């Protein structure tokens, strides 16, 4: 274990070592590769398609995939590929925002509870456990039904507010094991403030762990958002992969055999979330020498 304040040279070596193993880890490369390709599709696709609205009726209904319409068209003649590209964007946004908000809450609660201990820990731990037991989707159903969520941002906000507990618990446990280390004691003895100890001494020493937690929260948010969209409580404006699945089942794509309508959105969600999980395993191997295959 090294700290930035005392041993900058060694820190740099550790970083370079991580990078050395990162570019040689196939799991990490494949995982991030898939995510990157889909992310670029979502980011650049709408620009290249030239501003045509994803819900516009552009061609004949129920056309199978062709050179002109890569993923075919819906029962109403909407282009599935256009919807897919816009939907990817929404999905990444929901994942990044939901996962980000959840990670921030989890870190705040996990660090404070783990570092302070005592009564603060008891209260925060109780709060974490209570939110942990409540089924997330059920709460989101009630909130979304009454509020009538319109934007992806609001949906992601509520997902973030409900999906942090397991991460807070894990971060708390990690903080707990770090707080009695010598370098933390030293920092405390030299009168460094609690906030500074957490951000300067504890957080950097578990940065890889925090990053992996964020990845898992990201994937989880995507899945929850897709479920909400599918139940019919998604954002009412715009397109998302979950909404595409919902529309496909609602307008009997199954019975009509329009597989090109419902296969791509689900496959994309699976690919993003699965690739994130695999990349996470790869990261684990990079940061944890014990797990490296040599």
């Amino acid at each position: 274990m090294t700290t930035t304040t005392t041993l900058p040279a060694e820190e740099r070596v550790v970083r370079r070592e991580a990078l050395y193993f990162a570019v040689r880890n196939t799991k990490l490369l494949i995982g991030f590769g898939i995510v990157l390709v889909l992310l670029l599709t979502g980011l650049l696709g709408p620009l290249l398609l030239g501003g045509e609205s994803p819900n516009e009726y552009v061609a004949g209904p129920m056309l199978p995939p062709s050179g002109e319409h890569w993923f075919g068209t819906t029962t109403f003649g909407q282009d599935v590929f256009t919807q897919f590209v816009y939907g990817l964007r929404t999905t990444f946004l929901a994942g990044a925002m939901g996962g980000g908000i959840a990670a921030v809450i989890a870190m705040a609660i996990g660090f404070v509870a783990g570092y302070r201990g005592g009564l603060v820990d008891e209260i925060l731990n109780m709060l974490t456990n209570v939110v942990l037991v409540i089924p997330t989707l059920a709460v989101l159903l009630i909130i979304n039904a009454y509020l009538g969520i319109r934007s992806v941002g609001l949906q992601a906000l509520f997902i973030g507010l409900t999906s942090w507990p397991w991460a807070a618990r894990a971060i708390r446990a990690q903080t707990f094991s770090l707080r009695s280390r010598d370098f933390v004691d030293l920092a405390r003895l030299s009168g460094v403030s609690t906030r500074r100890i957490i951000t300067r001494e504890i957080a950097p020493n578990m940065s890889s762990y925090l990053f992996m937690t964020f990845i898992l929260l990201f994937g989880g948010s995507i899945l929850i958002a897709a479920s909400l969209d599918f139940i019919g409580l998604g954002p009412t404006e715009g397109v998302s992969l979950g909404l595409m699945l919902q529309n496909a089942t609602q307008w009997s794509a199954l019975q009509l055999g329009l597989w090109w309508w419902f296969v791509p959105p689900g496959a994309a969600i699976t690919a993003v979330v699965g690739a994130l999980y695999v990349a996470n395993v790869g990261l684990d191997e990079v940061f944890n020498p014990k797990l490296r295959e040599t």
Partner: protein
Amino acid sequence: MRQYFGRKLLIYGLTFVVAVTVNWMIPRFMPGDPVASMLARARVSQPAAVEAMRAYYTNLFGFDQPIWQQYLNFWGALFQGDFGISIWVFPTPVADVILGAVPYTLALMIPAVLLSYWIGNRLGAFAARRKLLDNTVLPVGYILTAMPYMWLAVILAWGLGVTAGWFPVAGGYSFALQPSWSWSFLVNLLHHWTLPFLSLFLVALGGWAIGMRNMIIYELESDYSNYLAALGAPTRLIRRYAFRNAILPQITGLALQLGVLVAGALVTEIVFSYPGLGSLILKAIQNQDFFLLQGTFMFIVIGVLLANFIIDIVYVIVDPRTRAGMAGAQA
């Protein structure tokens, strides 16, 4: 042990209070007037009818009373099993509507969760540290666990239902049949149950297999495993010990996954129009039946709390350390 259960029960009690309070608060403190929006949705044009409905709803929510009185009334009604009247199937009480749907959800969830848990753990334990198996179980596991529940359900319904025609893709039983205890009805029920069960089972399977595999590898690296190996103990024995140690975090994991599993069951039911709580929620949302939605929420919370408590009991039976009041399960 008493302390362990005391702590658990305190958490569940608190959770229940929080859930009920949330359920009570959301309609009352949301922006906008719920009564007005309900009236708008009802699309009644006669002023007299609107007035009557407004009076009815105001009375129903008890908006004319002080806020603490409303809160107490809410609890009182809850303990009497009064969840209000459903709007979708007016005038059936919400509790009756839900109780009619709960058996279907349970019949779907309990076998799917238990079987996937059992088989997934076995599979993961078996695959760990076995090159060839590991290289197939791991990728398949990751793909399965990354799948949205409804997507696998849709794919199965399309592949095995619509295209192959082996299974029906909608409903809990054929509309031609009346529910009865006859063989033909039970077979029909089972036939409709297979696909939703399969899709729930498969998605859950992947997660358990991966979790178990990782735990087993961790256990096989620990000192006691090395010691046993050094003593010349057979691999089977070492693996059995590793499994018994690895199953403990997996039990906690089951409790943590309950919410996700419920969510999975709900969306799977929607895909197959299976007459459980999921389809009920969809109907409630489509018909703006908020009493039904809130009632379903309460049922799900109670169900998850009960399941958590059962898992706690199982944990105490499985892990002797909790009985002796030593460390082991964290609250």
